[in-house]
């Protein structure tokens, strides 16, 4: 927060930023955060020179040091490393899938877990609440590979549960893994199932931290449960919701590889609705193991994500100046 100073100079109003002085307090805080900042520099900033891979044709030369190979021996290739991405005839489709799914996940992610978190804190039976809290977290532990087996047990053509039910009711069995039309819904459902417990916990922690006296005064003023929720709980959750939202916007070009590759079993027929950027890159580079290319794509995801993050932050701050990342 800037402290603005109003001053009058020769008849004009001038707003001047107050120069802050480095206080004793600041020194203490700096020391307190020193270990963390050191960690950030050591493990995040030092390796950041790796971004250079995106613009070079890196080839290690035995006998030289790694850094020498990277900075001196390898050639600059400008934007050529991005070329393979745009040679794909599906590139528009890939971007549509990536952004489309992520937007849906984003919207669900800021509504469903919040609503559930609020609801679960209101349950009468604390025992049911505790059991449910533990249960909803379980999907987080299962890896995508395991989930793909579970899904396969349901959707397998010959022995899957769904097809068994359908045929016993007299219908024709469906080739689930070959039919694209069901997959967008299934993928959204599966992803929500896996991730909602995780965000719910964050919101629940925030809710339990809310000062109870606020509710007390609201009740005295005659507020109903509904009004309490909208008047107290949600406004106090807004900062957390908004930063979760903004951070997910920053990652909007990245997808969870396991969901789109392993759960779909990499089935060719449904690829138009399941192939995202990360899956495409994996397939393109499976044979050649080219770090330059994968770096280029990662950089592209980061840059676009960063731009969107800044925009999202601005938008959020317009709505609610207290929220927002910075």
């Amino acid at each position, binding site marked *: 927060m800037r402290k603005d100073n109003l001053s009058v100079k020769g008849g004009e109003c001038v707003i001047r930023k107050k120069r802050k002085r480095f206080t004793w307090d600041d020194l203490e805080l700096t020391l307190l955060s020193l270990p963390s900042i050191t960690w950030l520099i050591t493990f995040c900033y030092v390796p950041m020179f790796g971004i250079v891979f995106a613009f070079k044709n890196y080839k290690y030369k*035995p006998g030289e040091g790694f850094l020498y190979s990277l900075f001196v021996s390898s050639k600059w290739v400008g934007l050529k490393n991005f070329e393979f991405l745009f*040679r794909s005839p599906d590139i528009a489709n890939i971007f549509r899938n990536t952004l489309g799914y992520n937007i849906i996940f984003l919207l669900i992610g800021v509504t469903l877990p919040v609503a559930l978190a609020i609801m679960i804190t209101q349950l009468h039976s604390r025992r049911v609440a505790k059991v449910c809290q533990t249960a909803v977290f379980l999907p987080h532990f299962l890896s995508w590979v395991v989930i793909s087996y579970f899904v396969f047990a349901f959707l397998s053509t010959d022995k899957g549960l769904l097809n068994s039910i359908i045929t016993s009711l007299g219908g024709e069995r469906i080739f689930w893994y070959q039919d694209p039309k069901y997959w967008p819904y299934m993928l959204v459902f599966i992803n929500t199932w896996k991730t909602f417990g995780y965000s719910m916990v964050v919101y629940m922690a925030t809710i339990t931290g809310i000062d109870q006296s606020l509710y007390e005064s609201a009740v005295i003023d005659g507020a109903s449960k509904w009004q309490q929720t909208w008047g107290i709980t949600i406004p106090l959750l807004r900062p957390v919701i908004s930063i979760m939202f903004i951070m997910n916007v920053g990652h909007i070009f990245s997808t969870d590889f396991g969901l789109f590759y392993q759960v779909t079993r990499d089935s060719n027929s449904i690829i138009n609705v399941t192939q995202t950027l990360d899956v495409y890159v994996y397939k*393109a*580079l499976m*044979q050649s193991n080219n770090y330059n290319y994968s770096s280029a794509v990662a950089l592209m995801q980061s840059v676009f994500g960063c731009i969107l993050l800044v925009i999202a932050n601005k938008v959020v701050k317009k709505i609610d100046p207290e929220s927002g990342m910075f």
Partner: protein
Amino acid sequence: MKKFLSLALALMLVLAIACTASDETQKIIWWVYASGDAPIDTQMVVDAANAYSAEKIGVEVELIFKNEEQFNLGMSTGEPYDMTFTCDWANDFASNAYNEMFYDITDLVKTATPALYETIEQKYWDVAGSLNGKIYAVPTLKDMASQQFFRLDKERFEAIGCELPDEMAFAELEPLLKAYKENYDDLYPLMMGKGGLTGMTNSAQWIAGNYLCSPYHLAGTDRENKIIPFWEDEVLMERYQLLHKWYDLGYINPDAATIESIGADIRAAIRSASAWKGYYAGYSSWAGIVVHGASYAGPFMSTATMRGAMNAINAAASEEQAIACLKYLELLNTDRTFRDILRYGVEGTHFTYTEVNGNKVVERTEQSNNNWSMDSFVTGSVVNASCTTDSYYDWEEIFADYENAIVSTLGTFTLDKTNVEAECAACSAVMEKYTAEMLTGTLDIDEKLETIKAELIAAGIEAVQAEAQAQLDAYLAGK
């Protein structure tokens, strides 16, 4: 003062001698391949091997197992090593040799370890271990040609009156499938996973990914030494068409394109494999049933079949280290006792020597199967190791049989992708969209071919083809 000085001198001399004396054994770091984790008894076996090799040639080894990802990362960042496993399916030999990551041993192997040079035939040095006329890796002797077999359930087929030939054409499988389907309803006749029938695409040499090839059957025709996209290979296309026909007829399991593989427990009527003559003889312990092997293609020999396993030396190694590595490989290739240690484990704990039909063979213990178990080519020559009680092969006979193999006309040619890397990546991605369904017959190749062609052309397959053909022509002209 003088006394003190002379004492100090004497002491230093003694120390110097002591140091050099203990410096006798050279240590080399050897990277080998493991898909998952290293076997549990690694330390035990390596200690035994080191004791033997230190005594014989003064070299000890530090054995590190790596998987594909670890290989790539280690090679890319310059992690120190002396000798490494390399082949065409992991830690790619051709691209590493191009980039001068490996030591040039052309002269060294002949002068420092002539015995090693003798054990491997000239043609294997030339085709497998060399690039552009220089030797960069020591080939591991194993099955050097690839022959495609159908492994058939002998009992069930003979029970319904089918005759099982030793050699057959791919299409001749159909009557067998039909008969099986009519008589048995518990399993699909032709079960497979998303990789399709193993080895089916080996009837052509693959130049770039799985989209540009040079089929063996074109040798001697006017299309010899031409690199063509896969749809111009009639043999392969016929197989894809047949597979689709069989898929529609219900001979192939419908979910083939989405499952990893058919588990070993399932009594699949037909499996496919790359093997050598005489491999399938009678009872197969893995299948648990009596099997019959029918060959439908091959044997073919090319860089791909010969480069299945090799060992290369780090270009940054000193000459002494390189010689130490070569000596170690020489010991592996000439000394059977030593080879057996690294192959089977410690004698007594992991195996014992017995005799079968007058041949000295190895009988493995339970501990060996659990704690020191890997493919034989991982630690060295397959040919030089003793055979086991349940799988005896006469390697001399097998190698003699290679005289009849169909040898590739392309020599040691390998595509240098530097100029067409982006196109290659894009084409790979396109092929990955369709390959599982093509190989399992799920896709109607006739229907989809135009689409696939169009996508590959948009991705740049024509540029790759032109580049590859130009390089091949230059190579053949220079031979």
